[in-house]
C-alpha cells in the first residue's frame, strides 16, 4: 500500500477536527473534535511505524500512549465542562467572556 493514503486520510481528518474545534459552540463538541485530531495523529504514527519498519515499534507504542492520554484528557475535559455548566448553566463557549478586557478600563 502507498504511504500516501493513510497520510492523506490523517490530514483530512485533522482538518475536519480543526474546523470542529473552531466552529463549534458547545464545549463537548469541541472535545469531540479534539478527539478527531488526536486520531488523525495516531494514524500518522502507525503509518510511519509500518513504513519505517521500526524495530522498536516506537510508532505503535506512541499511539498507545496517545490513546491513554486522550482518555485522561477527555475525563478531565468533561469534568471541567460540568463545572462550567453548573456555574454558568451553559456550555456555549462564546458566552464565557469573563476574561474580556474591560472596555472602559484605563491602563
Amino acid at each position, binding site marked *: 500500500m502507498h504511504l500516501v493514503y493513510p497520510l492523506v486520510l490523517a490530514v483530512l481528518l485533522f482538518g475536519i477536527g*480543526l474546523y470542529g474545534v473552531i466552529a463549534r459552540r458547545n464545549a463537548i463538541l469541541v472535545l469531540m473534535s479534539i478527539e478527531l485530531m488526536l486520531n488523525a495523529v495516531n494514524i500518522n504514527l502507525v503509518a510511519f511505524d509500518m513504513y519505517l519498519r521500526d524495530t522498536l515499534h516506537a510508532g505503535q507504542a506512541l499511539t498507545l500512549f496517545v490513546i491513554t492520554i486522550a482518555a485522561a484528557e477527555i475525563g478531565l475535559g468533561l469534568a471541567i465542562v460540568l463545572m462550567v455548566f453548573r456555574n454558568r448553566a451553559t456550555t456555549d*463557549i462564546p458566552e464565557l*467572556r469573563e*476574561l474580556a*478586557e474591560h472596555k472602559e478600563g484605563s491602563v
Partner: protein
Amino acid sequence: MTVAAATATGLPALAALLGLFLGRRVRPVLIAVPAVLVATGLAIAVAAGIGDDVHESAVRLTPTGALDITLGLRVDGLAALSAVLVTVVALLVQIYSAAYLREDPRYSSYAALVSLFTAAMLLVVYTGDLIVLLVGWEVMGVCSYFLIGHHWETEAARSASIKAFVVTKLGDVPFLIGILVLGTGADSFRIRDVLAAVPEGGAGWVTAGTLLLLGGVAGKSAQVPLQTWLPDAMAGPTPVSALIHAATMVAAGAYLVARLYPAFLAAHATLIVLAVLAMVTMIGSALAALAQEDLKRVLAWSTVGQLAYMTGGLAVGGRDAAVFHLLSHGAFKALLFLGAGVVIHVVGTGALAGMGGLRHRAPIAFWTMTAGLAALAGLPPFAGFFSKEAVLGAAEHTAAGHGPVPQTAGWLVLVAGLLTAVLTAAYATRVWLRVFFGPARETAPGAEVPAHADAADYGRPTPAGEAPAAMVWPLIVLAVPTVLFGFVAFSGLPSLGGDLGYDELTPHLPTTVLALAAFVLGAGVVAALWRRDPAADPARVLGPLRGPALRGFDVDGLYAALVLTPTRLAAKAARFSDGAVVDTYVKGAAQSAWLLGGGIRRGQNGNTRLYLTGLFAGVVVLAVAVAVGS
C-alpha cells in the same frame, strides 16, 4: 626692539587686570596712568630707534591641525608711529577722564577697560599674525561696547552699545573669512609670509581676501555700509569718544589696509571698491555733519568723513599720505573731542543751540579748539591742511595716470576730496561761530537731554572757571602737534616699510590752490550767512537736504526694514517651528505608541474562538512561509 614693543602692549593689559581686581581698594588713577605713561615712553623709544628696518619675533601660540598660529610682533615704521599716536592719546585721555569722571562710582572699571582697550589696540598695531590681530580687533570691539554702555542707566547708552558691537561684529564676519582666505592662500597666517606670497600681478585669493577684509574695515572704521553705529556711540563718555571713536579704534581699519598694503596694491578691484566707498562716505558724512544739532555728533560725522579721506588716500596708492593724515587726524580730532568735553562741562548741554559766546568763558578751550577746527578745515599752517593736501596730491598723481593704481580711483577720490573740503570748511566754521561767537544763550541747566547725548555731562554747568587743570592741560599738549605736525610733510615720515605707491608728501601747487579755494568758498558762505543773522543756524544753506542729513540719510530706517524686522520674523518663525513642527513629530511618535497599544487592547474581547482562529491562522501562514521559503 620687539621686547620693548611687547612690554608696551603687555603693561596696559596688566594694568587692566589689576584695575578690575583691585578696583575698590587702590585709587584707579594710580594703576592706569603710570602703566600708559611707561607704554608711551616705550612706544616713543621704539619709534625713535626703528629707522627703516623691520623687526620680527614670533613664537608658536598653538598647533591647529593645519596652519599654526604664531604669537609674535612685526614692528616697522608704520607700526611704531601708530603706536606712538595710540599711547599718547590714551595717556591724555586717562589723565583727562581722571578729572572728568572723578565722582563717577564706576570709574575703576572704566579706567581698567580703557587700559584693556589700549593693550588691545597696541596688540593690533604690533602683531605679526593675522589671527592674533583678529583677537585684538574683537577685544577692542568688546571694550568699546562696555565703554559706550558705561552710563547704562540711560536707554540711549544701552541701545548704542549693543548697536555698536553687533554692527562691528557683522563687519568682522567677512573679516574673519578674509583672513582665512589670505591664510590658506599664503599657507601661513603671518603677515610677513602673506605679503611675501602675494604674486606680482595679483591673484584670485588676494583679491577675494582683500575684498572680504574690506567688510571688517568698513565695520570698524564706520565706512558707508556700516557707519550708523559711530554717531550713536556718542552716548558714551566724551573721553571715550576722544580715544576710541576719534583716534584709535576707528583708525584701525585704515591702519590694517596700510599694514597689508602690498596685498591691496595687487588687487585693483579692491582699490576701486575702496575708492567708491570712500567717495560716498566722504560726501554723505560731510553733509550730515553740516546738519547736526549736537556738537559731539558733528564731530562724529566729521570723523567718518576724515576716515573716508584716509581710505580714499589708500585707494589711490598714497599710503604714506593716508598714514600722515591718520596721525594728524588722530591728534586734532582727539583735541576737538576733549575740547568739546570741556565746552559741555562749562555749558552743561551738548546741543549747539545751547552754546554761544564761549570765547570769554572758556578761553583755553576757545584757542585750542580754534586750532583744531582750523586743522580740520584745512587752514594752511595747521597739520590738517598738509595731510589733506598730501592725500589730494596722491589722488591727483594717480588721476594723471602715473603709478600702478587705476585712474578712475584717482579721479573719484580727487573730486570727492575737493567737494568734501568745501563742506568740511563749512561745518567747521559753523561750529566755530555758533559755539564761540554770537549771543550767550542761557538754557536752563538740565534742559531736556537729546536722546543720543552723553548723560554724565548734563545738568552740571560750572559757572566758576573753565574746567579743572587736568581737563584743560591735555588740550594744550594736543594743540602742539595740531599746529606743528604739518611741517613733517617736508621732511617726510620715516620710511613706512619700502616704497609703496606714491610717497611724496610735500604739497603740489595745483592741488594746494584748489584746496585753498575750497576752504575759502566753504568758510566764506557760512561766515556770510552768519553775519547776516547770528541767531539763525547757517545749516539752512542745505535747504531740503537738511532733514535727511540730520537723520544720517535714514540708513538706520533702511537697516531696520531690511535686517531687523526679517530677523524678528525669522525668530518668531523659528520658535513657532520648534514648538509646533519639530516637537509635534516627537509628541506624535509618543501618541502613536499609545494608539497602537489601545488598538491591540481592543482585540482582547474574551472570545476564545477568535483567539484560536487567530492562532491557527498564524500557524498556517508561518507554515506556508516556511514551505514557500525553503
